[in-house]
């Protein structure tokens, strides 16, 4: 059956009603569905908070044990300068002390500005930020053992830890048995690593 314009005239209101019903119901369902989805997301967030709160309470004994065990060590790390600002003056003092005590030849040092550090080896830094200052040491030596003395005594100072990354020892071609003239030259690079505390969430 072909519909005439008169027929369409009669079908106008039902067709408009159908369109309106379709649009309104689509809008209504979409709106209510979004409310349902929001409620689901809120529940997910709240459930996550509940799990965390429950776990925090259940592990409170372990937490207390951890605090008791690690808090003194942590405070010591702050005092040593591993956490917080570098204690460059103290480090230079250590270097001078080692130089004087072991009667070493002149030690040239340079400390570059601090930068963010991404270790290339496996290290779980958690929420801490790792910082690095590249230090260069240049010293003349009578014997290669002088380098070991310097490095090992720097470690022994229990100051902030560093990683000796690169060391080049070159023997001078002349060999003179004179304890006042160096026989070799060493150039080393160290990574002086410190930590920055994570920002604590405001209570």
């Amino acid at each position: 059956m072909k519909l005439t314009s008169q027929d369409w005239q009669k079908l106008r209101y039902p067709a408009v009603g159908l369109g309106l019903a379709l649009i309104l119901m689509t809008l209504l369902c979409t709106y209510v569905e979004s409310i349902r989805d929001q409620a689901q997301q809120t529940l997910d967030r709240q459930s996550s908070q509940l799990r965390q709160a429950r776990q925090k309470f259940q592990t409170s004994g372990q937490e207390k044990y951890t605090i008791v065990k690690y808090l003194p060590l942590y405070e010591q790390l702050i005092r040593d300068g591993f956490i917080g600002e570098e204690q460059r003056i103290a480090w230079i003092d250590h270097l001078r002390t080692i130089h004087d005590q072991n009667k070493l030849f002149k030690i040239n040092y340079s400390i570059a500005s601090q930068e963010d550090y991404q270790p290339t080896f496996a290290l779980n830094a958690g929420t801490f930020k790792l910082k690095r200052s590249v230090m260069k040491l240049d010293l003349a030596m009578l014997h290669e053992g002088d380098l070991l003395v310097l490095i090992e005594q720097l470690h022994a100072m229990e100051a902030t830890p560093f990683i000796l990354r690169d060391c080049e020892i070159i023997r001078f071609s002349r060999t003179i048995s004179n304890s006042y003239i160096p026989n070799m030259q060493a150039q080393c690079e160290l990574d002086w690593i410190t930590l920055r505390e994570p920002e604590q969430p405001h209570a």
Partner: protein
Amino acid sequence: MALFTKIVLCASGNYLTAGVWSWRKLRAFQVFDHDAPGKAEFARFLQQFPDTNIYLLADAVEEDYRLENLPHTSGAARHALLERKLSQTYRNTAFRAAHFIKHEIKREKDKRKDDRYVFLALNKVEFLSGWLAVIEAQQALLTGVYMLSMLSQVIVQKVIVRNGIVRNMRLIEPHIILSERLNSGLRQTYLHNGNLKISRLAAMPPEAENQRAYFYELETEKTSLYLISQGFINPETPLKMLLPELDDSSKDIRRQIQQEQGIDCERIDLAELASSIRIQPQLLKANPELLHMHLLAIGHVPDNLAPARLVRPHQVQRISLGINFASALIVFIGLMLTAVYVKQAADLSAETRQAALDTELYNQRYADVARDFPATPMVSNDLATAVEINKTIKQYGKAPRRMMQVISHALDVTLEIQLDRLHWLQTNEFDVQDDDKILDYVPSDKSNPPSSFVPDPSVLYEVGFINGQIKMFNGDYRRALESVNHLATLLRADSLVENVEILQSPVNVSSYSALQGSTNDEKSALQSAAMFKLRVILKPEVPVI
């Protein structure tokens, strides 16, 4: 409600019966005379039922029935074929229809499949025109025009047999004549195997009322002769005549027909039939056509004879209803979905509230417990992490003591070798290049044994580049090579060493590199140095984390 109300009309020559049905029950009926006042009254009647579907039954003498065999078709092809055939058969008749007869023709395997139809038509429609004009003027919704005889077929097919009104009649009774006394006259409908073949209405003059048996017998004889002439039956064919009657007043008629025509007659208890389809029997006494109208009203709608023009308002109305129904369905589904979502959202909100209460409870419990904790600047895990970081870094905070010890042990045995340079690294990058100025690096394929060393990139290895030369070299390259290889072998044998590679030999004897010198080298006072370079990788001291 117009949606659940139907008007069924039955038009015969002199009058029109109009009945109103709702919920399958006859609510009221009215008879209108075929004159101007009657039509005016009918118009007023229709005005009371706007937007109500109207079914019009035609009960006329001027009916035509033809049997047609057509090739089996379906869908649009069938429709087109029937339209063409009807137009050919009834050139000047607008009111016509083709009624399909089920299972009439048994198809033989090697022959064309045919369908059998009864073509129905009203040859004269003057008795309808007036009523149709009123319906059109009222813009009433005419659903169709139907033959009353089609409902007679329904009486036999569906009502009598199914409801067991005639209990001793078998379904296989092939030849039946249904004789119905209507206000318009005597209608005799011939059915073969329950299917309508022809029907004829004989007007009953008033004088015939006193000679009903004779009149019936006369008309039955005419009908029989017509059936014989049309080849539906032969003179020996046993016929069965059914006579619907409210009371047993047709006993004489049945006896006379049986005696004179030899036709087996049986009465149909019209009262029982009416009761079975829920119409009051006493109404049928004055208006027998109400039975047919009622059958139509309760759903037995036969083929429509009316042209499309007349039923267009009804079809548009049906489309409109369909659209409205679709709208209602959409609204219903939308509201159901909305209800489901609202219920889910409410449940989720309730769960969220409960979870918030539980969270608060656990936080309170934790706060109670945490009162005894030492004051800490940060969470306990961070304290442990900081300490562990410090430990890890300290593990790599080493001097090149191990490398020096390994080299010293090897040099203690190879006294002819002098060490000029040591470049020590802690790295996990094994493609790092040594940038010493002492020796130009010449790639060598020399005697480095294949190594199974697979570095772990998460660990820093101690790597040493060793530059050296043969002391007091006198130009004996073979010996110099042996010395360097011996040194490398000694280093490899050390348990602390992971891998040793000779990067540069005192002399490169490979065919893939250039070689130059002088045959006087061994005798010359100024001899070139026999320099070499090794790369030594120590095993990691730090355990893999």
